[in-house]
């Protein structure tokens, strides 16, 4: 016998099936979208983490290079300073051998006298050489002072100590 609601049932079933298909398809699309978004996000996170790691590594590397360069530079400059100090002490030692040179002392007395004019007094410096004084004025022609100034005035020649 004919089922009077068979057609209706079939139609409902079809509609339900279509709706279910639509929902499933939507769910699949949504799931695919979410998975893709999650993958994209994961990729971005990974890339960001990688970039951050690289940047950090580069920063650490740079910091380390700066530290090493600074230390190397410090050692070089300290060695140059020592070379200069050694030159100064050699100059002071060399000049101290002239302390009894009467010609030099006479020359210094004349030079000091010229600078100070009349009424000056001269005193022997314990390190050699002389110091002249007049009211309000003074001339230091002691050998240690002259040796130190001579090194200062050698200027570019001093740099040859570490340039060659």
């Amino acid at each position, binding site marked *: 016998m004919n089922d009077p609601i068979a057609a209706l049932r079939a139609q409902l079933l079809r509609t339900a099936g279509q709706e279910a298909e639509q929902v499933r398809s939507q769910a699949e699309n949504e799931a695919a979208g979410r998975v893709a978004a999650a993958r994209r996000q994961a990729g971005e996170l990974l890339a960001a983490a990688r970039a951050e790691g690289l940047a950090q590594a580069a920063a650490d590397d*740079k910091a380390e290079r700066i530290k090493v360069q600074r230390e190397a530079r410090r050692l070089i400059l300290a060695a140059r300073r020592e070379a200069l100090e050694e030159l100064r002490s050699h100059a002071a030692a060399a000049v101290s051998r002239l302390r009894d040179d009467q010609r030099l002392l006479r020359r210094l007395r004349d030079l000091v006298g010229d600078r100070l004019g009349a009424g000056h007094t001269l005193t022997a410096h314990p390190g050699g050489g002389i110091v002249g004084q007049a009211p309000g004025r*003074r*001339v230091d022609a002691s050998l240690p002072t002259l040796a130190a100034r001579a090194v200062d005035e050698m200027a570019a020649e001093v740099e040859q100590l570490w340039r060659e």
Partner: protein
Amino acid sequence: MIELEYTSLSELRGPLAVVSGVSKVGWDEFATIRLSSGETRHGLVLEVDRDLALVQVLEGTSGMAGDRTRVAFAGSPLRVPVGPGWLGRVCDGRGRPLDGGPAVFGASTAPAAGFPLNPTWRVPPAEPVLTGVSAIDLLTTLVRGQKIALFSAAGLPHLELAAQIAAQSHAGGEPFSVVFAAMGLTHADAASVRDALELRSAAGELVLLLNLADDPVIERVLTPRIALTVAEHLAFEMGRHVLVVMADMTSYCEALREVSAARGEIPARRAYPGYLYSDLASLYERCGRVRGRPGSLTLLPVLTMPAGDITHPVPDLTGYITEGQIVLSPQADLYPPIDALSSLSRLMRRGVGEGRTRPEHMDLAAQTLAALARARQAGELAEIVGAGALSATDRGHLDLARAFATHLLTQRADEERTLEETFDRAWRVVSVLPRRELAMLGEDALDACYREGG
């Protein structure tokens, strides 16, 4: 070599000492002051009247006794040894070593005040100095021999940017050096500048002069002069392209004001001396190029505008002299916070284009600035009518402004961008707009570089 010393100080007042009984002493002469303790200080002659000389002691007069102090005059204003020995050195604001090395010697000396250069020997600035900072290289390109100021305000990272520029700048493979004159810096700032510039220093391309906030103010007045004297020799005698960064010029001007007050001069605007303009010009005008010499001296003074006031005498007078400015904005929440629309390099045309940077450089910079200007107008309009009411073109310009901030302007403090990378980013930014909106760019450039769809 035999030096006459004066031993009668008739008065000591603040940083000033009056030496009596002097003869043949001149104004601005440099003086060495030896204390009974063995300590040595330095000074400058401010005034001479008959046998009296007024000396400003750089380190102050505390501890000096009138009858046991000796003053020797050099016979000339301060002279600075010049030569390659400065490269790689870190010194204080007067050129004394801070790096543990010996004093800097030179084959010759030059007056710290500099020689006035015959104007007819000057050659107009040309060719770029590339900083590796995209916004500057693209929009306000530094030109060799130019003076361009960096205007900032308190709290902004101007020092960081100045150090970055000093660390990265180059002249495309030609010999290049940087002289960084830091004035009135705190110890922390000085340490960060040293860190940023360490590798350049180690490479023997940098001279760093550090005048700290607690150093004598008159030393601060000397610092830029010493820096420029050293730089002039490197540029015009040794043929190097030299970038001189002077930060912070506001500190320098405050020191000048203090010295002027100590001299009893009549104060002018905001108590700065009336000669502030000519004093600044005497520094800024020492940059340039000289006919027949291969080197150049480019000047980047950095100044903080007190309370952000661009009409303050220091930025105001600086703006009259310099050939452009890079302005940092407190509104920009990014690094470097350069306000592209307020920044300008007046000589940029001489430094960019075919054979220098890229053929389309001027057009691309103009197009970017025009688009940013329209984006600013659109942004203001959007605040009134809402973004939804804007035209598609205006919304496109807002997108471009965002892309500019994200892709071009924002840059790490240790990130050096090549010119190619900067142009690549700039084309990505302008390609946010439809091609028809890019009317300032030539068809050839658009065909080669425009990216359809942004």
